[in-house]
């Protein structure tokens, strides 16, 4: 069978000592930079990209892939340890991961994230190797109507993210949608909510929003009472590694997260983000103790992390089979390829088989290296929490300022960090959770854009959402979710949770 000879070629290319070395360097660098607060995968890759230009094309791309996985993992580490997600997908990990860390289970959370990522990475790499072309065909079936219906489904799920008041969660989603619409309307060029500032023409920066409402708000909360560390994280550190029960608890979420992430990752745009949020929602629904979610549930880390990593892997599919980048990270990869003299397109697999399969093989190798590297590192990361908080938080502020600034070289984004930090703190005091706000922010523009596009393409006929089978299927699923949410038993459970909650 072709697959084996192809994979053999891939491993032969990727597993030369030189390329293994570059992969390792990439993973290490990616982790080290990605773990700095406020610096997510996109910023890390943009920073490290120039280093790879001097290498051979294959080595360069293998190293870049290593950087990507390293940065993703590093980003999750910061999300868990200090509640500072540098990327939309790790925002979900922050919800329960950070709560685990507060409860002295930082080591467990990190290990669960690492194991979940590795498993998801392995499965998704296999999927990429075997099914890349047919999966591409599926992704191409997604037009505006399908995207719109998918976003509606995602939005309905978003409300389930919250563990407090239903109304407040809903309001946060809507506010997120509105903030997502800030910027120039792509259909007419009309500026919306830009206050006349050209810096807002392309909308608000996600990183600034995430760093502000999650990270900065949390620091402010810790500074209450004027002591500088109302809550020292490092004081009670439980076991570093997950217990047998922990491992048992993560298997189901990991499998479901991997499946969801692999499926949504192939869709350009919001696919991978939806996967992490979706996985969280599913786990919360399936859990026997949904009240644990938001308080440090293992499933709330294992599921989204697996989904996130599986999605990261399968988001290579449109790039590898069509040469079209699915997200900003993939766009950077395309840039790297072009500078190396490879123009990615539908023919890469046939014209450059060693490169194509080499990258696929290095995906798995990179994931393997990550876990080998990171399981021992967990001890070190957790020790970081012993750094006194009043020393840690200026470091966090310094690095997140650099990280936010490096993305676009725009001072305005730093002002936005401060603004969102204040907003996040206000919401924290008012017991409104930030996660639904972030999801709304990501989905807002996609939702509106695809709705309007679908209407234009469908000549103003709203039936397009029902006559196109995939879209109709997604809407039926949405309806089912709503019905389940409104069912009296679940509802009562929700309200109990609300009463019990803090």
């Amino acid at each position, binding site marked *: 069978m072709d697959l084996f000879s192809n994979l053999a070629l891939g491993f032969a290319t990727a597993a030369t000592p030189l390329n293994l070395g570059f992969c390792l360097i990439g993973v290490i660098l990616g982790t080290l930079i990605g773990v700095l607060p406020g610096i997510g995968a996109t910023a890390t890759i943009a920073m490290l990209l120039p280093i790879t230009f001097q290498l051979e094309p294959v080595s360069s791309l293998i190293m870049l892939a290593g950087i990507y996985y390293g940065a993703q993992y590093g980003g999750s580490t910061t999300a868990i340890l200090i509640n500072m997600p540098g990327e939309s997908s790790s925002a979900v990990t922050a919800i329960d991961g950070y709560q685990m860390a507060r409860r002295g289970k930082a080591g467990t959370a990190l290990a669960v994230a690492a194991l979940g990522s590795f498993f998801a990475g392995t499965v998704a790499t296999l999927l990429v190797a075997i099914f890349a072309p047919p999966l591409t065909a599926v992704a191409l079936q997604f037009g505006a109507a399908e995207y719109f219906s998918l976003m509606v489904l995602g939005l309905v799920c978003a409300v389930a993210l919250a563990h407090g008041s239903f109304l407040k969660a809903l309001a946060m989603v809507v506010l997120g949608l509105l903030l997502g619409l800030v910027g120039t309307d792509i259909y007419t060029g009309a500026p919306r909510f830009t206050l006349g500032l050209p810096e807002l023409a392309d909308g608000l920066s996600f990183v600034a929003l995430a760093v502000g409402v999650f990270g900065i708000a949390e620091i402010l909360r810790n500074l209450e009472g004027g002591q500088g560390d109302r809550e020292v994280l490092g004081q009670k550190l439980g076991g570093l590694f997950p217990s047998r029960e922990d491992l048992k608890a993560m298997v189901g979420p990991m499998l479901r997260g991997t499946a969801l992430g692999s499926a949504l990752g192939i869709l350009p745009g919001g696919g991978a983000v939806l996967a992490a949020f979706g996985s969280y929602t599913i786990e919360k629904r399936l859990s026997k103790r949904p009240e644990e979610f938001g308080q440090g549930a293992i499933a709330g880390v294992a599921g989204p992390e697996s989904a996130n990593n599986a999605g990261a892997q399968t988001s290579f599919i449109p790039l590898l089979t069509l040469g079209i980048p699915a997200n900003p990270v993939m766009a950077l990869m395309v840039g790297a390829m072009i500078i190396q003299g490879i123009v990615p397109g539908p023919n890469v697999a046939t014209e450059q088989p060693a490169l194509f399969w080499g990258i696929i093989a290095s995906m798995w190798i990179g994931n393997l290296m990550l876990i080998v590297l990171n399981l021992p590192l967990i001890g070190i990361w957790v020790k970081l929490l012993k750094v006194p908080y009043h020393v840690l938080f200026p470091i966090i502020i310094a690095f997140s300022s650099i990280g936010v600034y490096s993305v*676009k070289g725009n001072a305005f984004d730093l002002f936005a960090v401060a603004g969102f930090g204040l907003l996040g703190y206000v919401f924290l005091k008012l017991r409104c959770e930030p996660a639904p706000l972030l999801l709304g922010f990501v989905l807002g523009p996609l939702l509106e854009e695809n709705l309007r596009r679908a209407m234009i393409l469908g000549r103003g006929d709203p039936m397009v959402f029902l006559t196109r089978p995939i879209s109709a299927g997604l809407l039926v699923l949405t309806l089912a979710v709503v019905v389940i949410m409104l069912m009296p038993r679940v509802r009562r459970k929700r309200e109990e949770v609300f009463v019990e909650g803090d």
Partner: protein
Amino acid sequence: MASLSRIGSLTAAAILLASAAVAQGYPDRQVTMVVPFAAGGPTDTVARLVAEKMSADLGQQIIVENVGGAGGTLGAAQVAEAEADGYTILLHHIGMATSESLYRELPYNALEAFAPVGLVTEVPMTVVARADFEPADMASFVTYVKENADTITMANAGIGAASHLCGMLLMQALEAPIVTVPYRGTGPAMTELVGGQIDIMCDQTTNTTEQIQGGTIKAYAVTTPERLDLFPDLPTAAEAGLPGIEVSVWHGIYAPAGTPQEAVDRLSTSLQTVLADPELSTRLAELGTAPSPVEDGTPEALSAKLSAEIERWRPIIEEAGVYAD
């Protein structure tokens, strides 16, 4: 207070000395090339290829800084305000000319705020369609689109994007009000074209070449005065009876106005050396484009191009009534 004023005069002297030094040994430290678009995009790629070559020639590193936002106007504004010492330069594309009409409130004047250095490359564009679009060649494309104007959809990568400019020209030439569907960037637009969700588009060869060669989309014509070596079988739009559609995405390097002449000249000579570099030609050819002729790597050539293009696009954009702010 006396010491303060002394510091002031010392500083003034230092600045004078510094600017004298600029004129002599330019460049004696690294130069920042601002690209007003995100890293990894087509303009960024051109910039990085050229910057690498120019660094070798200048003996000083040129580093690329991406200052994206507002259709390239944020990065351009930043360079317009930067110190005119030759250590901050800008690489911008056709948007430098079109934003003069697309933006009603631009913080700079493209003709006055910059000292042109030279033209870098002109990327041709192609008229393309989904792979199963009915017409077989450009002639039948023209009649087909005219007859079915109300059911055909055309993609572009957003207001002011090259695909948007070319689309406006195409509609004018065909006298057919085709339904235009904007996307957020070339990536999503191309995905939907490949997926057959949308009918036609006009985009740069940097984006279309691989897809055309891979058969995932269909090409009808090129927008250059002559046929391209890359696609010898594709007619020019003029051959197909649409003489108005001549458009290319040209890239130029600019310094802030007031930059010392020595610095501008040094940059321009360096650019000309690079334009003659065979390796740059090879790299650009892979992208479906070519370096500008060496004689265009001069301030005069870029200056002429910029004024001509501002005047050319103004009526087209005004007639279409589109604004990006």
